[in-house]
């Protein structure tokens, strides 16, 4: 019991320390109204979740720039679609992309999402896969509404491995 108590205390202290170091407690909400922008983001996420790729791609501007978590090169929208086609061409029995703890900013017609995400699913003939990452998206509000103009996803291992030289 005493050990459990002390472990809980150590975990609480550790969590508080991590929060303080990472600044997660200090990330404040924007002063601007982000409700309309958040709704656009939620609709976009839902198109991917339901497999409505026509609507998903329609939200991405034709000249959007994308850094995908699985590719170390800058992608155009066409390159991104090709990569997604590779994934949905029979490699998976199922996958989902889940945003976690998104933060939103709006500056006039510019929108920003900064968030964590998990890509997970089961590759055919393999166990399962999880890719935990950070992502940021840039959006612009056009006459027809909000559209995505940049998307950068980066798995956490790259932010941890070799972060500290010997």
């Amino acid at each position, binding site marked *: 019991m005493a050990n459990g108590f002390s472990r809980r205390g150590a975990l609480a202290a550790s969590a508080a320390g991590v929060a303080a*170091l*990472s*600044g*997660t407690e*200090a*990330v*404040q909400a*924007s*002063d601007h109204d982000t409700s309309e922008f958040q709704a656009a983001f939620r609709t976009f996420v839902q198109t991917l979740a339901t497999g409505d790729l026509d609507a998903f791609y329609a939200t991405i*501007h034709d*000249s959007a*720039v994308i*850094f*995908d*978590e*699985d*590719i*170390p090169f*800058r992608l155009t929208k066409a390159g991104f679609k090709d990569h997604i086609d590779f994934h949905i061409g029979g490699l998976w029995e199922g996958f989902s992309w889940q945003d976690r703890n998104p*933060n939103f*900013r709006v*500056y*006039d*017609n*510019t929108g*920003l999402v*900064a*968030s*964590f995400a998990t890509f997970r699913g089961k*590759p055919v*003939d*393999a*166990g399962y*896969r999880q*890719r935990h*990452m*950070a992502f*940021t*998206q*840039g*959006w*612009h*509000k*056009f006459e027809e509404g909000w559209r995505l*103009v*940049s998307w*950068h996803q*980066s*798995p*956490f*291992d*790259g*932010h*941890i*491995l*070799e*972060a500290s*030289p*010997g």
Partner: protein
Amino acid sequence: MNTQTLERDFSSALAVFTGEGSYDDFFAFFEDDALLVNEDIPFILDKDSYKDHMGFLAENMSMLEWIVREPRFQVYGDTGIVSAELTVRGKPNNAGFRQRHSVLTAVCHWNGSAWRGANLHTSTLLAHIYHMSPG
């Protein structure tokens, strides 16, 4: 507001990493409520935390440089997007040297007279390669 002014303001902000600017100018480029993702940290940072991290690096490294390669500047109305390849390099104190090959994106907006950064996201190429192919 166009790609030329976006390139001018972004490059001016990053000039500190080529020995031609200042950290004050670099941090002034970002909105106070900017959200930042650094290649060395697996959390989303606010501006104060990002400044703290950059201060840590400056204190523990010499010859710290950012080499921006193949930058691309895109403008949609008052929204600016910067994307590029990036090498962060320098010499940790009392150690050999360090190179972190990365990519970056910045989401910017035009405030009426200048471009300001809402975000800067840097991530190592390692993140985009390691574990990308299961099984």
